[in-house]
């Protein structure tokens, strides 16, 4: 019953696929013999796990952009902060096994001649504390940023530009050694997570399954939000902000809440990403990453949730293939893809599917179309 009203048919399929992947992938990599055709090598597991983290990031972005019209070009910052929180936990797990064999300080601090752990690192030996920070740090930053931006009624392109500035400022800050987060090398050389060797096939499989489940849970949360009355209000804000205000809704608090929730989801995505790729460095704050995430959502279908996740997986699959086959042309391919999608598929791949099924059986699709005036021009390409 709840599944029908909150998730819909498409959402139920999506959830079933997430759960199937969470079960199947570990079986294929751990239980199937390496010489079998069905065997999944560990590097593929890690790669797929990475895609799922991106899908969760795309889902978070779709919640604010697709449903509330807030085009964040800095969501990569929340992803990276979540990643750093997890990275710090993993650094503390190294203990005395680092190059300098210092049981109290990570290698880079010994190298910088520091003698004690900065307060920012306190508590990160605890997995629970780190998990809390994964959600709290991006959430708090988003809440603070949103408090100022939304209360001053910064909207549209101006908001997009300051989100971009936010992630760029963090990029520069994290590059500095005296920030105490490893400077431009970032955090790497991880050994264990919760006592399990991070390189082992079983741990990788477990991380993949955790990512798939996190994606499923993230989807359920997002779907519950957008199907509630709150969801109707944020769509109303997207389509006619001042009208919503005159109805008596405090638009800034709605935006603040959805933006903060989205940032926390992005943080979780980043936290799952870091142990699977084995490194986090300031490069994750690069504005280009955030823009790429916007492209995933646009390709998959804005304001559809499932489409956003699908777009992230497809585009990244394409990226893996293209950067291997024609490394010089990937960025052209990505740019071209974005132009094609904005010109011909304003509602993304899911919109195209809707249109094709609608042609076969004349029944209006249930997905939400985007008001034309809301399709704001995006730096690069634009409409």
């Amino acid at each position, binding site marked *: 019953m709840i599944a029908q009203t909150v998730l819909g048919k498409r959402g139920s399929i999506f959830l079933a696929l997430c759960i199937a992947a969470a079960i199947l992938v570990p079986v294929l990599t751990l239980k199937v013999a390496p010489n079998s055709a069905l065997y999944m090598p560990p590097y593929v597991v890690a790669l797929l796990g990475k895609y799922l983290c991106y899908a969760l990031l795309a889902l978070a972005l779709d919640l604010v952009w697709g449903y509330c019209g807030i085009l964040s070009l800095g969501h990569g910052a929340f992803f990276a902060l979540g990643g750093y929180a997890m990275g710090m936990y993993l650094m503390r797990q190294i203990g005395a096994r680092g190059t300098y064999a210092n049981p109290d300080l990570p290698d880079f601090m010994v190298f910088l001649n520091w003698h004690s752990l900065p307060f920012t690192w306190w508590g990160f030996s605890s997995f629970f504390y780190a998990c809390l920070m994964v959600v709290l740090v991006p959430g708090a930053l988003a809440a603070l940023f949103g408090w100022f931006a939304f209360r001053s009624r910064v909207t549209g392109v101006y908001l997009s530009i300051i989100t971009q500035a936010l992630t760029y400022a963090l990029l520069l800050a994290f590059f500095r050694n005296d920030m105490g987060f490893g400077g431009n090398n970032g955090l790497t050389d991880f050994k264990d997570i919760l006592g399990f060797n991070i390189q082992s096939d079983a741990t990788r499989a477990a991380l993949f399954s955790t990512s798939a489940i996190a994606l499923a849970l993230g989807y359920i949360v997002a779907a519950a*939000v957008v199907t*509630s*009355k*709150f969801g*109707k*209000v944020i*769509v*109303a804000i997207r*389509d*006619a902000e*001042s*009208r*919503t*205000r*005159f*109805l*008596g*809704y*405090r*638009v800034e*608090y*709605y935006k*603040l*809440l959805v933006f903060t929730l989205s940032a926390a989801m992005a943080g979780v995505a980043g936290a799952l990403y870091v142990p699977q790729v084995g490194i986090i460095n300031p490069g994750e704050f690069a504005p280009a990453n955030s823009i790429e995430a916007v492209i995933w959502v646009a390709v998959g279908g804005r304001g559809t949730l499932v489409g956003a996740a699908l777009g992230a997986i497809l585009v990244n699959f394409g990226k893996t293939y293209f950067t291997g086959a024609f490394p010089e042309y990937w960025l052209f391919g990505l740019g071209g893809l974005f132009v094609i999608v904005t010109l011909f598929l304003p509602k993304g791949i899911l919109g195209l599917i809707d249109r094709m099924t609608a042609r076969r059986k004349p029944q209006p699709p249930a997905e*939400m*179309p*985007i*008001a034309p005036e809301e399709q704001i021009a995006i730096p690069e390409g634009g409409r």
Partner: protein
Amino acid sequence: MTKDALTNSLLYLNDVKVSFDGYKALRGLSLVLAKGEMRAIIGPNGAGKTTMMDCITGKTRPDEGDVYFGGSTDLTKLDEADIAELGIGRKFQKPTVFENHTVEDNILLALKAPRSAFATLFGKAAADQRVRIDAILKTIRLTDHRLRPAADLSHGQKQWLEIGMLLAQDPKLLLVDEPVAGMTDAETATTAELLREIARDHSVVVVEHDMHFVRELGVKVTVLHEGAVLAEGSLDAVSADPRVIEVYLGR
């Protein structure tokens, strides 16, 4: 104006001045609306009608002057959401309904209910909401269209939907900006009927260009000119006023 005028009024504007970059949109506008009254406001373009609405609804803050609601609430200190909460509903000149929501959901969003983000996220719909929505849809003649997206409605239907959204807020005062612009004659007549129906238990301010429509409303008229009140009275009285004729025809 006297102290009595303030305490007995629903809406009280005294010597309100607003300027934008040196342009004086309102230059000492004063207006008193009694409880339960329906008032038509007319005036040529640039007379300050929309700016006046903006001052009442909190979109624009007056540079000088008083704006009081219900005799005691100073509206210049509140923002849009506060003022909407107080019971002032506004219909815009251009119909602004939520195009991607169904007709029913448009009314639902407007319906008087807790407005906080947490209430809408976790709250349950009140049981009588359905009944209220049905009643409003019937009043605005859109019962058959309840499940259609608002984007599919005709221009006139969108205007009615917006009036319905105002009703759903159950306001003490309705501000209606050019409700019949772009409507057919039949739609205009229906709208006048609709507003008269609403005025039976609400106070209403209607801003309108269409003299024919204003005549059909049959209420007291205030003529604005260059940001101040030029004349006030019945439509026949003000149309006989030489200054009004000068403003409307003398250019």
